[in-house]
């Protein structure tokens, strides 16, 4: 079989970090190549180099046998090398159609003057979205969409370029099963049409379904490539982490104290996002809220935390009614919220890892308003160690970290506040399997010490694994609750899709 992309000793160095280390490989045409590796192993770097986003420090690549030099992403697009990046890159204020055709809006000519042809832009977008079976209108404004929906728009945008090589950097990290299936159908169709794909994901279960080959990176090096049909998940994990002991999911007994509802929510509404939401969170409990994209989970959590307003309803924390929650007050009384979109609202990208890990605990560390780096350092070191955040120096900007490591910083920022109640919105998004187990373990350990948390994830397996109890949300309403130990994945999936 012929190769579409060949790399020879491809290397990318950032300061002291060798992100990609003499990567040499042939990627065969019309196949789906999974790239696997732990956080910071160089997967995104490889994609960025292939997509013309960054220039390799040394090494060669060729596309269809010809030397390939992309000095910008535009060059890559011209060669039909299209990328869906790990971090979303849509313009939040613009509509879906404008984003998809950004910089190349269809034009019409009238008396020699060219103007944007809105009708055609809208129609083309509509066809594209319908073809992907997406229920999003071409005029929807990006910032009004959930992160998962934004991710599907990002994929639609990639499709509109007619890729011959499609690079997908964790396209499913914010998607729920339904959208994942949609994506996979699309990828299989593209493969049939001759498109080659590279596919990055931390979800092992997806590999068997979609990948033809698996290429593993560790510390920027090419560890090996295997045919998916001839390997097992545990072999892949071994290649990813080397011969280190693996964390196994721990046996766990629920710590929930059903007599002590630390958080009570009654009749909370904000139409049209959610309506009449009521539930209780017990002390020491890990409570899941499951639902499809757009079910309103994030919106409810944000309202309780005071990040968004609500129309009516009651929030009672520790027996005390909260009138007008705002994030500052809620943080003060021991709540915390890790947002799902780390790049936009979870981190200050240009600031150091140190500062990002100390942001939410700032006031705790400065009781009299006075703060020193030394006072914060123990917290920084603790989180870097606990979460195995791969850093060169804590003074580096957080933007220099790989996606998964940035996610750990968001998590660590809040764990440094010693919260009483935590809302985890997609805490494991983009985090590798081992670090994921570590995050779950921390949630459980803290639960034993009295932390009560609400856990939201698009990965239903994860919800079953982590939670003591799962609430089901559908179209903005709480429709019931499930006991994870008595529930199969299919049952949970059906409950989210069709109700109980």
């Amino acid at each position, binding site marked *: 079989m012929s190769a579409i992309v060949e790399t020879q000793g491809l290397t990318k160095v950032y300061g002291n970090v060798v992100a990609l280390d003499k990567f040499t490989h042939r990627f065969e045409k019309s196949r789906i190549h999974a790239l696997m590796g732990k956080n910071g192993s160089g997967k995104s770097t490889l994609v960025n180099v292939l997509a013309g986003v960054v220039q390799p420090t040394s090494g060669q690549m060729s596309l269809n046998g010809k030397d390939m030099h992309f000095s910008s992403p535009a060059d890559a697009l011209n060669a039909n090398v299209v990328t869906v990046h790990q971090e979303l890159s849509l313009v939040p204020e613009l509509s879906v159609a404008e984003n998809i055709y950004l910089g190349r809006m269809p034009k019409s000519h009238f008396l020699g003057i060219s103007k944007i042809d809105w009708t055609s832009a809208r129609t083309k977008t509509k066809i594209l979205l319908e073809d992907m079976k997406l229920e999003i209108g071409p005029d929807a404004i990006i910032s009004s969409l959930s992160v998962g929906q934004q991710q599907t728009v990002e994929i639609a945008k990639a499709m509109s370029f007619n890729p011959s090589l499609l690079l997908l950097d964790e396209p499913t990290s914010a998607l729920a099963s339904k959208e994942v299936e949609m994506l996979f159908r699309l990828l299989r169709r593209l493969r049939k049409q001759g498109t080659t794909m590279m596919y990055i994901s931390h979800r092992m279960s997806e590999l068997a379904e979609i990948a033809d080959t698996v290429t593993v990176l560790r510390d920027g090096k090419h560890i090996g490539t295997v045919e998916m049909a001839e390997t097992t998940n545990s072999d892949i994990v071994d290649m990813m982490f080397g011969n280190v002991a693996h964390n196994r999911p721990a046996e766990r007994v629920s710590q929930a104290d059903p007599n002590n509802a630390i958080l009570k929510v009654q009749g909370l509404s904000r139409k049209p996002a959610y309506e009449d939401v009521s539930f209780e969170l017990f002390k020491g409990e890990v409570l899941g809220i499951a639902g499809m994209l757009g079910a309103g989970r994030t919106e409810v959590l944000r309202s309780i935390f005071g990040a968004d307003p609500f129309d009516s309803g009651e929030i009672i924390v520790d027996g005390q009614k909260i009138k007008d929650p705002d*994030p500052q007050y809620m943080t003060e009384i021991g709540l915390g919220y890790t947002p799902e979109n780390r790049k936009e609202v979870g981190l200050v990208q240009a600031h150091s890892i140190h500062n990002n890990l100390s942001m939410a605990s700032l006031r705790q560390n400065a009781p009299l308003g006075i703060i020193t780096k030394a006072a914060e350092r123990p917290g920084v070191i603790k989180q870097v160690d606990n979460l195995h955040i791969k850093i060169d120096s804590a003074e580096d900007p957080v933007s220099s970290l790989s996606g998964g490591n940035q996610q750990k910083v968001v998590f660590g920022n809040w764990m440094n506040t010693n919260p009483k109640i935590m809302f985890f919105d997609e805490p494991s998004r983009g985090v590798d399997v081992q670090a994921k187990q570590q995050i779950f373990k921390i949630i459980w350990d803290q639960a034993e010490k009295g932390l009560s948390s609400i856990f939201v994830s698009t990965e239903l397996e994860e919800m079953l694994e982590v939670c003591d109890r799962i609430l089901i949300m559908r179209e903005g309403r709480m429709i019931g609750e499930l006991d994870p130990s008595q529930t199969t994945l299919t049952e949970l999936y059906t409950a989210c899709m069709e109700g109980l």
Partner: protein
Amino acid sequence: MQITQFFRRHPMEIILIVMFIFLVFAAPGFATVNNQLNVLRNITMQGIIAFGMTMIIVSGEIDLSIGSGVAFSGCVTAWITRELVDVTGPFFAITMGALTAMAILFGIGVLTGKLRQHFNMPTFITTLGLLTVLSGAANLITDGFPITSFPYEFNFLGSGYLFGIPFPVYIFITLFALVYFLMNYTSFGRSLYAVGGNLEAARLSGIDVWKTKTLALGLTGVFTAIAGVLIASQILSGSASAARGWELDVISAVIIGGTSLFGGKGTVRGTLIGVLFLGVIVNGMTLMNVSEYWQYVVRGGLIIGAVWMNHALDRKVKA
């Protein structure tokens, strides 16, 4: 290697030193003690405001009204002095005047912050309006003529010497130390950076983003009033035409010092260098008899050059 690293991290310091050495040889009278003290005194007033402005710009806002603010506070102080001096004596009258000016400008800063918070009024617009409003107010107070109500002793504040050093320099150093402390060792300072770097991330981390911005605007108001009182002392009157155009000098110094107009990045130490830099270059050019018009051209070019260099070096350090 280490030297190039140092150069990349502290480009403005090095350029300042090089220029200083150049002027020692090229500009007649530059290297005298008297001239150096003169430079120091000339930069203090704008410098004081630039320290406050650094906090504002780091927090992602701007204040364009400071030129008029300086004139306004001088006039308020002079006016209150004139009204009170016969009743209370000069010391109390001037003190009352100065405190009133500080309180008013603090209040206006807070108001600007509140308008930003509740009505989403960009500070760029509000303070642009205030630039005109305060100038008008200063003229209303003085009726178009400087108020010369100050006793001669008051001149000490702006023009006097203590242990051989111009008195305003002490205030300059004190306020630098204060802002340095605030920005580096307080949760307020840390919040300034977070708020300017990513407003929503800061808000969701439980930081009181509006209090932070408002306080920066208010404090700078106080600094502006202090500069206004010092100027009034120097010219021994409250004049509505004092400090015209200062906003651009002050903002230039902050930017030359490496602070990003987009917020979230910058240091008051950099601003100090920026202030010294502008002071030295203006003084040097004057001594070398460079025409005033050329001085404008050079200063403008410097701002553009400094921003370009900071940007270019930033990318080098990252890559």
